[in-house]
């Protein structure tokens, strides 16, 4: 089964061979490296940019205006914060011009903690991203969703941000999460599409016969059905929440894990349906906890579903700190971990109204 990074690479291949992707670019995105996480190895339209994130975003906007279909990468989302004004422009151009110019670009960037990335390779971007109107924002939690969401992002006529959960990039899909067309065997796939170590000048990938798969933007996925507590999450926290829920099942606590997949627009129907069923909500994400996207979800839930709630809704998010420290204990204490998630779910489940 493909890893998430292979899934992304395959989606980009489909993008450039079938869906009109013309430029895949960013720092170290082209040969010889093919991206710091190998997401862009072996593709046809990749190129290396100058070390200038503002140029990368500007270039993407310009290419999009010119009717091309760019996929731009910011090497780590930690380095996208000098481009927020340009991201806002990408998001407001269609609106500001009264519907004259749409801006069909995809920006992808690795996000989140979990790899001991220290202060500048551990940032989340979901809260910042959801503050930029005019963008669609997606974040997969498994290879198949990564593939299907990226294809949808490429097809969309609007700017779409594709947030790559760094800690899951090397994780494989579970049975049932196959990418249509990928060879069954991991080693076969790796041989076909992973660049060899050493000299790569003569290497060419051999792409499997992939089928198109579109995960619609705006549709959540029930990662684990349950009846007692709704957990709203995405990205790296999804497998963590599922694992927490599985462990709690032994204690007869039955949590439903909703993988939002799209942060904007998000799937309000799915959220509402789950909350109406469980009457208890936990939001889990890694971004810092003041002015956090999970707080938006909670606000909307209390505004619209207040009387459905049998317990105070809860947020488990990153500590409100200037950074994530390198040492194990520091990183652990800064972003949600499985144990904390278990505790929070259990508390909610046991809460007596």
């Amino acid at each position, binding site marked *: 089964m493909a890893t998430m990074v292979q899934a992304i690479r395959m989606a980009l291949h489909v993008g450039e061979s079938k869906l*009109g992707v*013309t*430029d895949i670019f960013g720092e170290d995105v082209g040969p010889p490296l093919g991206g710091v996480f190998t997401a862009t190895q072996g593709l046809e339209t990749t190129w290396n*940019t*100058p070390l*200038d994130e*503002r*140029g990368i*975003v*500007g*270039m*993407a*906007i*310009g*290419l*999009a*205006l*010119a*009717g*091309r*279909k*760019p996929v731009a990468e910011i090497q780590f989302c930690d380095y996208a914060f000098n481009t927020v*004004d*340009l991201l806002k*422009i990408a998001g407001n*151009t*269609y*609106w*500001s*011009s*009264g*519907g*004259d*110019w*749409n*801006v*069909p670009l995809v920006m992808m960037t690795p996000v989140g903690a979990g790899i001991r990335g220290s202060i500048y390779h551990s940032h989340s971007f979901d809260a910042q991203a959801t503050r930029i*109107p*005019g963008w*669609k924002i997606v974040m997969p939690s498994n290879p198949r969703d990564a593939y299907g969401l990226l294809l949808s992002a490429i097809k969309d*006529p*609007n700017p779409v941000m594709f947030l790559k959960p760094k800690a899951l990039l090397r994780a494989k899909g579970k049975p049932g999460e196959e990418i249509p067309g990928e060879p069954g065997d991991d080693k076969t796939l790796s041989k076909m599409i992973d660049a060899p170590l050493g000299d790569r000048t003569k290497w060419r990938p051999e792409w499997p016969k992939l089928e198109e798969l579109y995960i619609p933007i705006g549709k959540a996925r029930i990662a684990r059905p349950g009846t007692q507590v709704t957990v709203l999450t995405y990205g790296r926290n999804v497998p963590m929440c599922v694992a927490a829920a599985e462990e709690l099942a032994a204690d007869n606590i039955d949590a439903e894990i909703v993988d939002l997949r799209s942060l904007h627009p998000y799937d309000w129907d799915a959220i509402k349906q789950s909350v109406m069923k469980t009457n208890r909500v936990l939001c889990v994400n890694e971004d810092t906890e003041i002015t956090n996207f999970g707080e938006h979800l909670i606000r909307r839930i209390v505004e619209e579903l207040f009387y459905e709630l049998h317990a105070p809704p809860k947020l488990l998010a990153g500590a409100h700190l200037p950074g994530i420290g390198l040492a194990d204990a520091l990183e652990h204490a800064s972003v949600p971990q499985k144990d904390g998630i278990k505790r929070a779910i259990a508390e909610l489940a046991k809460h007596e109204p």
Partner: protein
Amino acid sequence: MTTAPPDRSAERSPTTAAASGGLSTETALRLHDLMLRSRVLEERLITMYKQGDGYFWIGGPGEEAFNVPLGLLVDKGQGLDHDYLHLHYRSSGTLLAMGADPIDSLRQMKNTASDPYSKGRNFAGHYSVRKWNVAPVSSPIEVQYSIAIGTAQAQTKKGTKGITIVQGGDAGTAEGDFATCLVWSSRKGRELPILIIVTNNKFGISTPYEGQHGESRIADRGKAFGMQTATIDGNDPETSFHALKKAIDYVRTERKPYLLEAMVSRLHGHSSASGANFVKDEVDCLTRFEQRLEEKKVLSRAQMDEMRAKYTQEFLTASQKVREEPQPKAETIWDHVFADKNYVGGEN
């Protein structure tokens, strides 16, 4: 009011004798007409502001001698085969020269629902014309320089004859985006077909050029990048015409960047925020050009006065019309958040 797009054949092959320096009489007349029209348009916009028919004015009186030739020389059209324009908020001369209907500027000033550039959302002078490759003017200074490299890159890849033109002020060159444009457009073996214009009026709002720049000439910043550069008197339409022609031809043919700095005037101050009153101690390119045309007997003072009166009346009438046009409805704020089709990609 509909205005036929200007006849452009004359400028391309100047056949008639030079009437004003190196310009054919036709070109000189065409330039004068458009310079005058844009001046009168800006005056009308200022009046509208002063009379409460708009909240803010910013525009290009003082840049006509440069901006009008630019509009005439552009390869106008839609898509990669034509030129892309990333302009700033002083570009009405360029737009009129390209054939924009002046009443649309009044509509944007009055923020009517009929404003074709932003539907009553944006300030005056914030043009957006997709059918002519005029990218939306956006208030943040200098970002157009980071965006323009993208349309130029698209043109390189497709191998068209189209080029990209980006324009902004002098003070704005202090932003990193200006450097981004220089860096990305000059990469060896990957040069971009882009004309980088700086319209230097020696001011950023209230801040004079002196004391803010280590460069004697902004254009010099291109030299380290191996770029062709020039600094010209943008108050002279003839100089501007020829310099722009040379620069555009170079970029179109060589597919390489060119950095052109044009010294211009700011005739009504920065914007309505600084009063928008006429500033006497700057060169007025229109007055100077009219004097020359008079001396060379291309036009008489009376003829020019008559033209001015005509345009003044025309725009007054237009502004009265615009005043009656409906304002956008509250619920329209929700329009155009997301596109349902890829318009720039050719869908319709």
